[in-house]
């Protein structure tokens, strides 16, 4: 693996600035605002695999949907190849971006239309985004991407229906759909969490290979910290809509700075290590971020909290070596 630090901005393929997304919740009379993602700055370099980890509800999938143009940001900007997405005008340029940044979904049992053969989604993608391809060109490309994701023999698998495939094979179809668009960055939202243990590694390895062979970057969203360590160059940790820590994967996981990252890492079951019971009393209740007041969102659970944490929202600070942490106490 080739670890890459968070390089200079010119190297960035995609970056976000103050990315924020709120949702209106509650009844008409008592409108409230749910802060799903607040003020997130992140960068993804060319050919880099970045893992985004955090508990469910922390805003990981909202970030994926913002990058995939499913949601519009409430505030903030996404820059792709140094162009701001808010200035994307017209269907044509939106389509071009969608092809460069496709998404792979979590549930292999619902992410492929059961009414069509495996080839359907892949061919549709090419029809929409690669008008230059002729019919035979599409056929050849279809075989190439099925080959690339290990669905061999391609000539046979392309005629299968989803129900004839196992979960791991379906997930590979998802990657083939993305690959057919000649992507630069694949946003993979929990792509292995619903797969069996024995085939998970296969899909993780596939992402590694696609990066090596096709030069694709990945945003790998997961709650499985160990798989993030296995695959990613850099890791971003989210808590309650905020990015709380980031840095090279190995550094962050071996020497976590933020108290939440520490809790998260210690809770990962590891048969090769002692059971970490020190903070097992934490029952893992994340806060609901509805109309939040300033202050650290982790403070109710934090063993290190100080007075400042009640009133001042910690911002990401540089710690050197590409590491950043949002905490008043950590250093």
């Amino acid at each position, binding site marked *: 693996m080739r670890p890459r630090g968070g390089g200079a901005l010119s190297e960035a393929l995609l970056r976000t600035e103050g990315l924020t997304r709120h949702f209106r919740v509650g009844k008409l009379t008592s409108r409230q605002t749910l802060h799903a993602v607040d003020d997130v700055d992140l960068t993804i370099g060319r050919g880099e695999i970045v893992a985004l980890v955090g508990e469910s509800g922390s805003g990981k999938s909202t970030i994926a949907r913002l990058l995939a143009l499913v949601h519009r940001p409430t505030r903030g900007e996404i820059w792709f190849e140094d162009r701001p997405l808010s200035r994307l005008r017209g269907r044509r340029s939106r389509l071009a971006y*969608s092809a460069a940044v496709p998404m792979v979904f979590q549930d292999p049992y619902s992410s492929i239309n059961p*009414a069509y053969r495996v080839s359907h989604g892949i061919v549709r993608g090419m029809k929409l985004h690669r008008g230059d391809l002729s019919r035979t060109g599409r056929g050849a490309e279809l075989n190439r991407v099925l080959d690339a994701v290990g669905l061999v023999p391609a000539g046979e698998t392309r005629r299968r229906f989803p*129900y004839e495939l196992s*979960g791991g094979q379906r997930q590979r179809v998802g990657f083939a759909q993305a690959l057919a668009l000649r992507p630069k960055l694949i946003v993979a939202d929990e792509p292995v969490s619903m797969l069996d243990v024995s085939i998970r590694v296969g899909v993780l390895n596939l992402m590694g290979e696609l990066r090596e062979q096709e030069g694709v970057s990945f945003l790998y969203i997961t709650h499985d*910290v160990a798989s993030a360590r296995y695959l990613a160059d850099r890791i971003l940790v989210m808590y309650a809509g905020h990015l709380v820590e980031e840095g090279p994967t190995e550094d962050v996981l071996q020497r976590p700075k933020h108290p939440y990252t520490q809790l998260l890492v210690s809770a990962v*079951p590891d048969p090769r290590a002692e*059971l970490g019971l020190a903070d097992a009393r934490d029952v893992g209740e994340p806060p609901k971020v509805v109309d939040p007041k300033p202050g650290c969102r982790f403070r109710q659970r934090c063993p290190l909290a100080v007075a400042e944490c009640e009133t001042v929202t910690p911002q990401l600070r540089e710690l050197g070596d590409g590491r950043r942490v949002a905490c008043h106490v950590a250093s």
Partner: protein
Amino acid sequence: MSASSIGATDQLATPPIGPKPLVAEVGGGRLGDIWRAISRNRKAVAGLLLLLVFVVVSIFPGQIAPDDPTAQTYPPALGPSWHHLLGTTSLRQDIFSQLIFGTRLSLVIALAVGAIATVLAVLIGVSAAYLGGIADGILSLVTDVILVLPIFPLIIVITAYRKNSGLFMLIIVLGVLGWSYGARQLRSQALSLRTREFLESARVRGERRLYVILFEILPTMTSLIVATFLGSALYAVLAAAGLQFIGLGDPNSQSWGTMLYWAQSNEALFAGMPWWALAPGICLALLGAAFALLNYAFDEISSPALRVRKLERSRIPGRLPSPADTTPAVAPDRSVLKVEGLSVAYATDAGPVVAVDNVDLDVGRGEFLAIVGESGCGKSTLLYAIARLLGAPLPGEIIGGRVLFQGQDLVLLEERELRRVRWRDLSVVMQSAMNALNPVLTVAEQMRDACRAHSKMSKAEIEERSREVLRLVSIDPVHLHSYPHQLSGGMRQRAMIAMALLFTPDLVIMDEPTSALDVVAQRSLMVQIKELQERLGFAVIFVTHDMSLVSHFSDRLLVMYAGQVAELSSTRELFDRPRHPYSQGLLEAFPSIRGPKVRLLGIPGSPPDLAHPPAGCRFAPRCAHVQPRCTEGEVPLSTVNGSVVRCVLAEEGH
């Protein structure tokens, strides 16, 4: 049924790789498969034949009917005879010929109304679901209003008002008022599709809305659309006949409904011409029955869960003992549960599938036994079989073996006797608490129901006990009066466990109770389960697909593969010296968070289709150590240093 077994229904109804859905075949144009499905379904065949008869008659009435139906040339009010099979009317017409010629119009009304109603239902139902928000609100309101309107009087008023416009008007009115039921169903199915990721995938791909509705949503709803058509055709047959019977919609046209009208106005039944009224009535009933049969058959074909399959025991290979030949034995004192040779089969289209094959296991008092394996390896089925939760409404049948619990064989117990055991002495915690808890009852109400069903506790005692068990699992008793959706995922799982502990059972069976939780919540729940177990002394059977989760908690570990025991040993031993190549593969499939970073390989291939398990060792197709003797015959279990292993290499210390 207890709350926990409701959860069981939800899970087994959607097996990981389920029976193939019909929609796939429809969408792919695999007409051969549909045809096969139809020809195997008796209701479908009967309905089709019936419909075919009517279609033929309606196309060739002239060739079939002996006379001109309008000719008024016969003696009036004759009884049935060779000449006039059903007699004649008081208007001097041949009843049989009228019946034959009336078929066409009756059928046309049914099909035309069916088509109009279906198109409207699809348009309105699917748009409402897909557009959501205000559009959905308005469309649904209209649908519901039409659904509760007294349609029949309304139709009468409308058709009576435009009496002279006749048949065409009748069809339009029936079609326009008949879509609401279908629309409601289509809307709810489309709504459930809306959260399916393939739609999001299409949108992210950049597809336009119309494409998504027409080419992504509709093809997956073919079965419901066909069902809507058949349903509204049935409604049209009855409604049109009713209207014509009271003289609306052109009484001079040739149809069964108008025959009824004339028969009625000439008092046919009392004037010796019973067939004038009876014959069209019977035909209407038959045509309605044809649509109803097809509708029902289509439902069955498209949702395999409705199909009643019989387990063909004779097609199950091997010599499995049937439950009847086993005599109950007393379990030895030290174990709470002893399972011997337990086998469970599902009836599927491909024949019987043995999902649990000859499993032996025992659980000691206060022991924590973990069962691990991939999806579809039969873990859940084994649990359901032990708790005797299989059988209607859940599919699956125990085809052999014994489950000895407290000295009795649960397999032989009646449902009534089981109720005394379940929950009091043996309780079950299901995979998804959201499915297993009743969403419309508070935690307190669900606990009260459980206590009432299984004991004679007083109201005060129940309240007291409920608080006590909630405190046991670290939930503040203020949540007693919360509904499940008001609790977080972790709290719901805890509440489920609290309910399982209401009677301090000897054995608690848990199916992936933590798989929906985040790691932090997961660890805290595991620690809690372990503490409770040590404090209260119950035994646990804990099913999971994640070996590392139980590494610090279980005493022994049972690895299942393709319905069989692959390895059973003490947890430490299994992690340190896995003997079965599958256990080794599983251990090497987990990236570690601390150890050295090495490239992992996982296990190549995927688990076998249990309808056609490979001969010999079931793991052979994926095993790196496979050799000829592995596939020659069944590989028996062997015991090596206290571990039980199903592998020919076991003795060589692999």
